[in-house]
């Protein structure tokens, strides 16, 4: 907070890079108030919302995601960071919509029908949001109809499905089958995850990628959407 104040006094000679790095640090430490303040400050300096998102928030969440993947951070720290990010997004989202800024992608995510485990899935949803995706989290016990309707409604190009039970993971194949039937399969990239899954299963059911954790989920989503555009 204090560092931001100092930059405020320096007027024209604002070190933007230092400001964004401070925002990234605040995000890493999960200090919501500081991240929100940093976002407001950058806006006050006339920075474009899309730049604040990319250089402050997304870059910060990337670091969080990397350290999560490396086992340095764990679920509580990632959720804290994601919550800070979410608060900042409340400010940026309406501005981004106004300016028609490009999104990293539009994602629909949910835990499949019959399964009620959703902490891991929520983590992925927050990390995707952190990576600049527009995320529609459908919760748990989601059937194919609901997935299809949400993909249509939001014009999603990314579908994430999670299952934590060997008994519920086959339902992912049902959803993919329905995507084909509805003529939507070519419009969305399908990512799947959950403890009992593996890459071979993802391949068998015709998903685009299996992701072992949230950090991988972000990298995979980016790679797939980038390839597409």
């Amino acid at each position, binding site marked *: 907070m204090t560092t931001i104040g100092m930059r405020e006094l320096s007027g024209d000679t604002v070190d933007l890079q230092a400001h964004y790095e401070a925002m990234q640090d605040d995000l890493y430490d999960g200090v919501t108030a500081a991240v929100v303040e940093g976002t407001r400050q950058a806006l006050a300096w006339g920075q474009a919302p899309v730049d604040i998102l990319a250089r402050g928030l997304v870059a910060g969440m990337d670091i969080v995601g990397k350290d999560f993947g490396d086992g340095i951070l764990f679920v509580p720290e990632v959720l804290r960071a994601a919550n800070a990010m979410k608060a900042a997004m409340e400010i940026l989202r309406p501005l981004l919509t106004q300016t028609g800024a490009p999104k990293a992608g539009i994602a629909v995510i949910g835990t499949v*029908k019959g399964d009620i485990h959703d902490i891991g899935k929520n983590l992925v949803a927050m990390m995707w949001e952190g990576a600049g995706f527009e995320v529609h989290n459908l919760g748990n016990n989601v059937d194919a109809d609901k997935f299809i309707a949400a993909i249509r409604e939001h014009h999603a190009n990314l579908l994430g499905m999670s299952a934590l039970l060997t008994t519920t993971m086959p339902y992912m194949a049902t959803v993919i089958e329905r995507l084909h039937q509805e003529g939507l399969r070519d419009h969305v990239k399908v990512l799947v995850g959950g403890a009992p899954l593996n890459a071979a299963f993802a391949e068998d059911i015709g998903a685009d990628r299996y992701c072992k954790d949230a950090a991988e989920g972000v990298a995979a989503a980016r790679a797939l959407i980038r390839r597409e555009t």
Partner: protein
Amino acid sequence: MKQWGRKLQSALSQCGAQFVIPSHLAYNRRAMTPPSNPHQPTASRPSDEGRAAYRVVFQPSGRQGEAAAGSNLLDAARSLGVEIEAICNGRQTCGKCQVTVEEGFFAKHGLTSDAEHLSAADGREARYWDQHPRPAGRRLACACQVRGDLLISVPAESQARKQVVRKAVTERAIVVDPAIRLYYVEIEPPTLENQLGDWDRLAAELARRFGLQGLRLDPILLHTLQPILREGNWKATVTVWQDCEVVRVQPGYAEEAYGLAVDIGTTTVAMHLCDLRTGAVLATASRMNPQVAYGEDLMSRVSYCDTREDGLATLRGAVINALNELAAEAAAEAGVTPEAISDIVLVGNTVMHHILLNIPPRQLGQSPFGPAVSDAVDIQARELGLRLAPGAQAHVLPVEAGHVGADNVGVILAEEPHRAPADEIWLIVDVGTNGELLLGNRERLFSASSPTGPAFEGAQIRHGMRAAAGAIERVRIDPETLEVRFKVIGREEWSNEWEMGKLVDWETGKSVDWEADRLPTQRTNLPTYHPTNPPTYQSTSPGQKARPRDAPILAAGICGSGIIEAIAELFVAGVLTPDGRFAAEARSPRLSWQGSKAEFVLAWPHEASTGRPIVVTSDDVRNIQLGKAALYSGARLLMARMGVDRVDRVLLAGAFGSYIDATHAMILGMIPDCDLTKVTTVGNSAGDGARIALLNKQQREEARRLARWTNYIGVAMEPRFQDAFVEALPMPHSVDAFPHLTEILQAAAGRRRARGVSDTVSARERRARLAKAS
């Protein structure tokens, strides 16, 4: 009568008796029959002469009431709920109903008891005593008429409901009152004139002699009924289940009755063979559940049934086969035949329960996880495929919810949380792949299922294994030197006492000096272990086989209790931070890094049967954190439901629970804070519950009541579950206090400080670390 009732009440309140039977309810019609000879009785006091009823007190039960003058003593006992053995049912031949008259004035009961207060021993009873030794004051209850006040002692051998002590940490009495009873009958043989069927004559006699009206006969018994009756010369002992169905007929007089109590676990099947007359456990047998071959965890079993046409048949066949083999094994050990086993009680989780009953378990594999049946199930054992007595009955305890099964009902029966004082809160944790929780006391009881994952059973742990020979089950780490000693299953001494030098090469017969051959001489000079380039401890002569003769058990892996202790010890030593990271500042040859992830060596290659080090990794710690947070948050949510913020007793149940060390479990934050002396392990409670239900038919009804009474809470659907779970990930917890661990936690924090370890990760440190690295 009224006056007696008042006196009785005051006498009862004085002696603190638990049991009061209102006099108008206390007697059945037979006992209330007017005295046959009201003028004969010898009264204890002159004024009592000619009373219509007398007071009778039975010991040791303390049950008491009034008996009509001239009524039968055995009938009086039964009407008061005092169960006395009487296989011949009053024919004065079996001699089972022996009782002793205590003589004198008993102030506590306010009565004078005298041998003369019973009709004299004559006729058949006299002949019985001529042939059998007679302890002082002994009578056959069935032959006695009440003629005065009495204090009667029922010796242990005559008690139909015997008290036995359960073999467990919490010893308690089980009242023996099984669902099956034996009845001895003599029937008239058929003649050319009387051609009524053998069974019909048997049934008529059972009805006439024992009042067993409308008995059903298991039709399979007809196959052998005629030869049996003839072999016994028209005398037979009939085994009756729940006083409604004949399940076995034996020639002549017999008194043996056996039953099985079975716990079908996901990984282990265990059974007790019990003597149903005494309650004694005659044999115990267990083995791995053969279904493991088709899937380690429950959901994979459900999938197997769901995706294969013969899936259910295969899994059911596997477990039934195991049960039959175990029954034969147990019977052989007890010196009986499986055909002598006429009752069996089974418990298991819902998936095991469904598979056993040939119910497709599909619905248990997906939300909302509804079971096919909640209530208890009675079924013929042979219909399940069990080879016991042909008419044997099977009873499967009820289930509470889709993921809280009959095994948990067994735990309730055995540990009796529903009897906990109202001012105490008990928490029972059954640790397994699916943790089951019970919280409450006599007023309310909540249950929940918690998705702990298989980490506690050794899965998802780098060197995890099941609790089998060679599994590291105990770990101690010196907080200063970080030296490790451990214990493996199958070996008494700790690893630091292992004598490595006495090993003998199994091919050459020469002794192998492990210390000289395979190890750097000084332990403290051991090289830092790098996972990418593990040191190889080669024997000096390359051709020599490393397997020694009579090889003692070496460490093969880490089982659940071992991983819990290892992680808790590392935390206490200040090597692990509360958020579950290995501290980069800790220095030990046992600790090595690969990038930002670490491994800590528990067993060096020479201590391991694999010849490779056995380690605890960063990912192992994370997986245990996830499992323990699921358990803890489940318990915490139940506490919130109950409106309490502390527990007074914690019971760790389950075969695995028995090996968990309470302190380590609490340091890890698996269980809420509690006085450590009040945290106990209770062994296989589910199996004990099955035994209780086997030995006492009322407990089967109690189980049905308790299963409905217990409130199941779907914790995963509670709105606060995610927050509670995330808060519970750090060790022991991010928010909740653990006052009973204050010293340990302060010492751990002190060691972290001394090593310069920071408890949290911060961006500033991260930048410093990166700067240092580059």
